[in-house]
């Protein structure tokens, strides 16, 4: 039986998908949760943010080099993009792809501008998922039912 809080959580979740923040991979991760591992998605996302903080520092340091080492930037972003993909972070993944395209074109300005977009999406998603997980925990477990897809 869905309480108002559960409905709010469901709406938050739906918005994250509708607004393009998350993709199907996030659902895949949700399906790996069970009674024994009910917070797997939150654990992976937390891991992602810890891990990506380091990667982003590396990228930022590399972006300060002149001239830009596009090979190195592309390699860093490849890894970062992979992690975004693994958690279903759709918008971030898209910005990472754009960044890599600019690396390929050796477009410094493109890289610098796009990195700011990556960073913005990174932070936006962190806040949104943070709120979502917090609300989910407050709402408590709903009886095992098919999640609205």
């Amino acid at each position: 039986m869905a309480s108002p809080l559960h409905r709010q959580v469901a709406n938050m979740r739906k918005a994250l998908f509708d607004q393009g923040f998350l993709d199907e991979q996030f659902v895949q991760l949700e399906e790996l949760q069970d009674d024994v591992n009910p917070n797997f998605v939150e654990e992976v996302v937390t891991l992602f943010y810890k891990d990506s903080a380091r990667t982003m520092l590396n990228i930022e340091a590399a972006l300060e080099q002149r001239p830009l080492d596009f090979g190195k930037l592309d390699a860093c972003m490849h890894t970062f993009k992979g992690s975004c993909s693994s958690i279903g972070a759709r918008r971030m993944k898209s910005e990472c792809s754009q960044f890599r395209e600019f690396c390929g074109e050796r477009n410094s300005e493109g890289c610098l501008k796009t990195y700011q977009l990556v960073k913005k999406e990174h932070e936006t998603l962190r806040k949104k998922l943070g709120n979502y997980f917090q609300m989910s925990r407050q709402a408590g477990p709903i009886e095992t039912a098919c999640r609205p897809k």
Partner: protein
Amino acid sequence: MVASQGFHVLAVDDSFVDRTVIERLLKISAYRVTTVDSGTRALQLLGLDGQNDAPCYEAMEINMIITDYSMPGMTGYELLKKIKESSTLREIPVVIMSSENVMARIDRCLEEGAEDFLLKPVKLSDVKRLESYLNKGVKEEEEIGVHPVISASMGIENLESVQLS
């Protein structure tokens, strides 16, 4: 009987996030899992010292290896090659994972002896596919509890455990 039950998979990926996800995917599919972050470490666990194919110490028993393609240092392809070049390890099924769908890369890996090539992000349905590769690398273990006399009458000839090292 679930085909995957009890089989030990070695997962190799330099990404912490991806290792966590693949580990969960494999565990949920009833595999035992060991994860490592590099090809070098994988070879150590498999009992190769990386220089030649003589095992240098008691190797971990592995029934299948799943490895990322793009890793710093030793790539998944290089790891695959080393495994297939080893007389002791070449029968272990190897599956490659990659975020990039490059035909030439896929062909190269399959030609080198990889069983399959999974496109990242890896899903549960991908992991389900892996079951079919295990029959190649299956080791007959005492745990299955087949009595030699009974097996002979059932026509199972060779009950001797196949040692990896």
